[in-house]
């Protein structure tokens, strides 16, 4: 047996090393910071993972949803996807747009929010800080990608059937978004005060629900205005997206930690909840105002006149409309952030070049996303919504409809909606993050998977109920009132942690891909079955997870308590203790 020293073997295999003394490199004093020369392979190595991960992130959320819708249409409904190449290009634009926008958000906007959150409370009095938080709430709402969906689907609404809804979505779209923004602004202010004072979320929820449900009770008796309820409740779900949540949170947490109160594990929760309840109040008040000042005949007459005049001016044509939309979304927010930073704080940005790059990316991303929204998400959503209705009802564009008997057809539509909600929610990256937080918060009692499934099942049932609402033409108020009554009951029973998590999970689930798709699907579906309006699905998708998460939370607590009691009795069997409280 011959022996070779391993070290010698390795030394034999060694690659060629060039030894350079670092002294050689640093000789001659501090070298000027010169730009490096890169080889092609270096550029590739740097860019490939940078672009790859960001691209793949969006592909993972967008592609399965699009495939699901298209395959369902092809296999179950046996319909070709109309304009398939336009839709594919649209989805490509959504992926690229979101990728650019998210990167731009991270590089261009988050630094502002962090600096402002840290510095502002030290330099200004609390009322000034809260006022700025309020304005920022409005700004971020305008920049939310999904908000464009409201305008995009507005054209699907028929003016003669729901005149107030048409008026809100088309002629007053700007006011509508502003009102939603004011709602978010108020929520941000209240949420920040909550951070500072350490208020419990429960009474805040009850206090916010009183006017919200009260307005529902008032509006539901007016036959014309009640058609706008669905829009009001859906706009609550639209607001809490990828811009609002991180920016407002960064600010709120910064303010709380400046006051020395940022350490609670629950800080960060609650703003999302309030930000999805307050806009509902705002939109309902707006529709009351519109109802009081305008009557339906005038709206219908103006709308028909506008349609005859042929309103497709160059301003409303692609891509000009999208570019204007993108600029309108980003520029006010950025101008506001710059103003605060330079005029109020007199601070400088650390990396101005990178921030400029980020803002440019965000702007381009928003414009590209808006194009994709119109041609990909809204188009496919309304198309499959209309065709799903063909499973059980006669639909003009679909020869041979209804494909199945009413019972089977409705079942297919419900299963379709359920699976769509479940899959889309489970794929939402924000839900994964929430799951991790919750697992840490509850010391592992509430597993990440448990939460993710609870939320997804909640959304799935919510969307299915929303579809059923359109099929059976149930007024939305009849679903919202008992739903939120149950939520209030569960809130009273649950502990503070679960209340926070459950109410926030509703906002987390509705991302920039799901929202336009579901909105457009609902409206297309509603038109196909001759419902008055197809809103309300998103609001059902918001209440669903609130109920399921709190119910799961109660169940987890009960099993944990029972196991703890059991363990006390079986103290002589310590081997089992390590197995924990896994649900």
């Amino acid at each position, binding site marked *: 047996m011959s022996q070779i*020293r*391993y*070290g010698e073997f*390795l*030394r034999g*295999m*060694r*690659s060629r090393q060039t030894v350079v003394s670092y002294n050689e490199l640093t000789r001659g004093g501090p070298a000027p*910071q*010169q*730009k*490096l020369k*890169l080889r092609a*392979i*270096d*550029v590739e*190595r*740097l*860019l490939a*993972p*940078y672009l790859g*991960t960001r691209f793949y992130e969006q592909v993972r959320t967008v592609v399965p949803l699009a495939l699901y819708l298209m395959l369902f249409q092809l296999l179950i409904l046996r319909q070709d996807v109309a304009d398939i190449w336009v839709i594919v290009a649209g989805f490509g634009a959504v992926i690229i747009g979101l990728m650019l926008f998210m990167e731009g958000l991270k*590089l261009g906007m988050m630094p502002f929010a962090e600096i402002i959150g840290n510095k502002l409370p030290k330099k200004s009095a609390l009322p000034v800080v809260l006022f700025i938080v309020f304005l920022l709430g409005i700004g971020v709402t305008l920049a939310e990608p999904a908000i464009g969906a409201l305008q995009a689907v507005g054209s699907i609404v028929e003016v003669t059937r729901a005149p107030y809804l048409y008026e809100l979505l088309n002629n007053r779209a700007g006011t509508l978004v502003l009102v939603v923004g004011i709602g978010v602004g108020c929520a941000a202010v209240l949420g920040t005060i909550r951070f500072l004072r350490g208020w419990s979320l429960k009474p805040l929820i009850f206090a916010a629900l009183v006017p919200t449900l009260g307005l529902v009770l008032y509006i539901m008796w007016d036959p014309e205005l009640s058609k706008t309820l669905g829009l009001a409740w859906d706009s609550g779900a639209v607001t809490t997206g990828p811009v609002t949540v991180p920016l407002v949170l960064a600010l709120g947490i910064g303010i709380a930690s400046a006051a020395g109160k940022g350490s609670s594990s629950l800080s960060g929760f609650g703003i999302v909840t309030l930000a999805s309840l307050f806009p509902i109040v705002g939109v309902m008040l707006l529709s009351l105002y519109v109802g009081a000042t305008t009557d339906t005949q005038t709206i219908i007459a103006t709308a028909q006149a506008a349609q005859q005049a042929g309103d497709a001016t160059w301003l409303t044509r692609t891509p000009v409309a999208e570019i204007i939309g993108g600029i309108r979304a980003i520029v006010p927010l950025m101008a506001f952030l710059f103003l605060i930073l330079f005029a109020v704080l007199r601070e400088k940005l650390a990396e101005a070049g*990178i921030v400029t*790059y980020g803002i440019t990316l965000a702007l381009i991303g928003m414009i590209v996303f808006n194009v994709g929204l119109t041609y990909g998400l809204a188009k496919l959503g309304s198309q499959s919504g209309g065709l799903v209705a063909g499973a059980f009802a006669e639909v003009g564009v679909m020869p041979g409809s209804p494909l199945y008997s009413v019972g089977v057809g409705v079942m297919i539509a419900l299963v379709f909606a359920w699976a769509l909600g479940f899959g889309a929610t489970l794929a939402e990256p924000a839900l994964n993050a929430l799951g991790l937080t919750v697992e840490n918060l509850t010391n592992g009692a509430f597993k990440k998977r448990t939460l993710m499934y609870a939320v997804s099942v909640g959304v799935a049932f919510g969307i299915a109920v929303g579809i059923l609402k359109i099929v059976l033409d149930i007024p939305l108020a009849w679903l919202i009132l008992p739903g939120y009554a149950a939520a209030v009951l569960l809130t009273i029973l649950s502990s503070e942690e679960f209340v926070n998590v459950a109410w926030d999970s509703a906002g987390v689930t509705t991302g920039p891909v799901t929202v336009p798709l579901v909105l457009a699907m609902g409206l297309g579906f509603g038109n196909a079955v001759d419902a008055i309006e197809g809103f309300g699905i998103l609001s059902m998708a918001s209440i669903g997870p609130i109920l399921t998460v709190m119910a799961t939370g109660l169940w987890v607590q009960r099993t944990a308590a029972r196991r703890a009691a059991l363990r006390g009795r079986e103290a002589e069997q310590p081997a089992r203790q390590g197995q924990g409280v896994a649900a």
Partner: protein
Amino acid sequence: MSKREIIVLTDVTLITCVVQRGVADKIVKAAYAAGAQGATVHFAKGMGIRERLGLLGVAVEVEKEVVQIVVSEDQVEHIFETMYLAGELNTPGMGIMYITPLEKAATYVPPEVLARLEARSEEPS
């Protein structure tokens, strides 16, 4: 006689490798394949290279992972090279790595390994 026994390892070396966040897994896997037995990874924030890369600087993650691997002196060259190649450190912005001599190390050494070593040292070589 009741003194506790501590097994001290000599001829140990530390390899430290700073890479962008998310790359550490790749480096550690390569080091394992080359014979490393464990690794410690912690997070850090780096600066210096982004400014010199110009526009491409945005592609370099500011958040870093610091991989620390204790290896034997016999292994160190081989593992060092493997990690360098796995991390593609010959591209600017990818990271830096260095070797630090260690005086002593102590950790768990399996008893059967100890027994084998003792048996070998008793034999006349």
